[in-house]
């Protein structure tokens, strides 16, 4: 056991010596700190409606018609639309072309049946999009008003909550990415160190040393897992600084460590089988994609389990995490069984 830990220490040192890993972490951190520009963009993928909510833009809206003033009232309730009312289309058009207003809304008499509103937008694509998104909310409310005139009532109108997009995005995308990324790196490190050993034929010198083959490779895997746990813990701390806490942190880290272990043992087998780094890395990353895809269908999948643990879901806990020990043990057993054979099967 002591020799094992000496080996682990040696491996950790060699990982630490690579200043590049620090740089890699730093860059990941910069990306993960998610400058608001990127976050808004990414969030708009996740929930497009959030663009309209996130903009602080005010629009000068020109209104023509709207005899009973109901649309104007809905607009002014939001408090972000300075409204100008025009008596007829010509003056509104002129104001629009002179740039006094951003858009013109023509509101006909609200009646039963179909009401056809007209919206004048600038030709520039970017502005058009923005105006449409920002105006969507008051337009929807006006639509409900017209529905009521037609005797159509929507249920569940009154319910409100805190905007969920951010929450779902952070816990279901950012947390799994940050917790699994170190595991992917761990596997990549293992492929590198193992195949390096095979390519440089440094194993021959180790044959004479009083350590077993499994100790040598096991120490590499173990060191990679340790590095992964450290990174995950670092992410948790950084997220905490951003006022964003992970519940069940111990279990989340345990699960990440188990996954890192699984991936690392798998990576070690791949590297021993192919012996040359380039092919091993390629097969490793391809297999990772495939396994990740399959894992999505497991219930609970590692991604969703991480999310649910981090959000303090009542129905997941240690038992679900422990289930993941089974594949880890299997991977470790497979590795110890085949490692010797694979090493001896020299190409």
């Amino acid at each position, binding site marked *: 056991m002591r020799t094992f830990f000496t080996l682990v220490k040696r491996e950790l040192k060699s990982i630490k010596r690579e200043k*590049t890993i620090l740089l*890699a972490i730093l*860059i*990941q951190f910069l990306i993960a700190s998610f*400058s608001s*520009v990127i976050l808004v*963009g990414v969030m*708009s*993928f*996740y929930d497009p409606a959030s*663009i309209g909510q996130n903009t602080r833009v005010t629009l000068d809206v020109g209104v*023509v018609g709207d005899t009973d003033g109901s649309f104007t009232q809905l607009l002014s309730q939001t408090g972000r639309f300075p409204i100008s009312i025009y*008596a*007829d289309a010509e003056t509104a058009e002129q104001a*629009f*072309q002179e*740039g006094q207003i*951003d858009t013109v809304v023509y509101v006909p008499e609200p009646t039963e049946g*179909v009401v*056809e*509103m*007209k919206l*004048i937008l*600038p*030709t520039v694509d*970017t*502005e*058009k*999009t*923005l105006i*449409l*998104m920002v105006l969507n909310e008051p*337009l929807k409310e*006006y*639509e409900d008003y017209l529905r009521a005139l*037609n005797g*159509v009532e929507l*249920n*569940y109108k009154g*319910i409100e*909550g*805190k*905007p*969920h997009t951010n929450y779902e995005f952070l816990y*279901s995308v950012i947390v799994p990415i940050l917790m699994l990324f170190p595991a992917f*790196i761990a596997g*990549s*490190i293992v492929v*590198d*160190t193992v195949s*390096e050993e095979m390519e440089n034929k440094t194993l021959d010198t180790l044959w004479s040393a009083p350590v077993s083959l499994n100790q040598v490779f096991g120490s590499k895997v173990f060191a990679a897992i340790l590095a992964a746990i450290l990174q995950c813990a670092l992410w948790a701390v950084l997220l905490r600084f951003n006022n964003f806490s992970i519940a069940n942190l111990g279990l989340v880290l345990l699960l990440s460590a188990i996954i890192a272990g699984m991936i690392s043992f798998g990576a070690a087998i791949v590297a021993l089988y192919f012996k040359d780094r*380039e092919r091993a*890395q*390629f*097969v490793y990353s*391809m297999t990772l*994609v495939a396994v990740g895809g399959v894992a999505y269908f497991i219930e609970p999948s590692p*991604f969703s389990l991480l999310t649910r643990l981090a959000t303090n*879901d*009542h129905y997941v806990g240690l038992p679900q995490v422990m289930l993941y020990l089974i594949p880890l043990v299997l991977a470790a057993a497979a590795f110890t069984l085949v490692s010797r054979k694979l090493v001896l099967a020299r190409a």
Partner: protein
Amino acid sequence: MLAIIVLALIVGFAVYQQDLVLAKGIYTIGVSPDAPPVEDKRFNIMQLDLENGLAALQDGTIDLYLWPGHVFATSAPRSQYATSALKQYLEEAELVRISQEYDIDSAFPLRVEVRELEVSKSRMSSRDTLSLSEIIDSSKPAVVSEGEPVPPGPVLPITSTPDTGNGAGEASNAAADKPEPGSQSSMTDQAVRDQLQNLGGTGGLPAFKAEFVSDEDIIVPSLMDPPTPLAQVILAFLYVIPLFFVSVFFTSSFMEEKTNRKLVILMSAPVTPLQVIFGKMLPYLGYAIVCIIGITLLLGGNVPLGLAIFIPVMLFIMAIYLMVALLYRTFKDQTFFSVLAVWVITAYLVAPAMFSGVSNLSYISPLTLAVQMYRGESFGVTEYLLSTMPMYLLFVIAVFLGTRMFNEEFLMGFRPLHRKISEAIALAINPNHLNLSVFFLSLCVIPLVFMVQLASIVMASNLPMPASLWALFAISVVVEEIAKSVGVAVLLKNGLVASRRALILLCFASALGFLLGEKLLLYLALSVVSQSMFMDALFSSGLLFAPLAMHFVATSVVCLATSRFGTRFYPLAIVAGSILHALYNLYVIGELF
């Protein structure tokens, strides 16, 4: 090996078909047996009657309880988020319900017809600033340039009477198809039906569709999909993945020959370094081009356009990986730098493209062009040049540096990164034509400076408003000063500068080269991203001799200080030069506003 690729593709396709729900099971909710079914994978559903449901809600074992017509929630954050998520689901479910229970005219009584109208030019440019500022939160009053006559625009196609059918749109081709007034409402009915088709896709990600809703003439507010280019960005990103793989193979093979010392043998052969680099690169470029053509054909795009957009992307990725291969010696280094490069390149390409159609800044990434191609929109030559020029140039620079670095001592030596870089610069400079070399060096770093500054815009927007502007200001000034003086500093370090007069001359050459590149870029950038405060801050515009003098003076200060106190004090010299530069920029901005 092929089997694994196929497997990976199949699994990826399966996940994609199952419409990937990212937040699967994030909430647990109780639902009354007589409440409508909730079919949204974000929710774990538990059937509970009212009493048990409320008890479970009290215990916190469920996040909310749904009772016909009512939602019970607690004030706990999780419960609140769940409520908002359920609201989103129920709103859509209600739309489906009313569309089934009522006739279409009662259920969707409001139709908004969208018309576009040309605005006078000056107004447009100032509005562009606003859409940019909307993202980076600066609001600058519009600068209206005078002397431009308002074009006699088309008649506003609305009438002040509620009658809508006739006269409403000679401009609109949709209305032109339907001459009789009565058919207008049946046409909008059709639009509502079309948009109802898209409804019902639940879950986190919006439905995958190539169409872009805002292009439609008729909008139904509750059915309007916000226009995200998600589908097209994914399409565009499909190209980048094989390009990454090809580049990684290229780097690996390069590294292997480097460690095998096969490259050293090649060096003694009668071939030029350029031939070696291109010889090694060409097969991979060939694969990449085949990939691009294949994907474009598969997606039904325009092949020449696809090639025009993605060849620069390919060269950009290759350039970065060539540098990785040349600068690094061990596999571990290379793995980390590959990972890093993947992140940086992905961020640089994808992040701006997500704003296509929202901000013109998105044109810094060629993926935006691809998004537009797949949307059937057009883009101009200037947009193309702005997004691809830096990439072409970077490739040329990388290959040039590669040929210069191609000697045994450099390739095989173990040295810290900054020393390797300074050596690379020293190798890039031709000792017989110092001034000319420095001139071209400063000219050629412009794309790099541009990319760094654009990245810094993204980073700086993290900070609150005045601070972000200042940070951006500081970063861009420092980056420019480093870019201008680094070549001269390397020469100083190697003792290649004979006299003070030669030093001043070098500084002038560097300032001139930088200014030329800057103006070229500015010319391109301004025609796409119309003049904004940020662009002014980055590339102080307008005058010609004043900026040249400023670049010259600032660079001279940096270089003289470095020459006087030694290269150890280079960072301090940079600070001094930057302060001068910043004062000048502040003065120019003060003049402009």
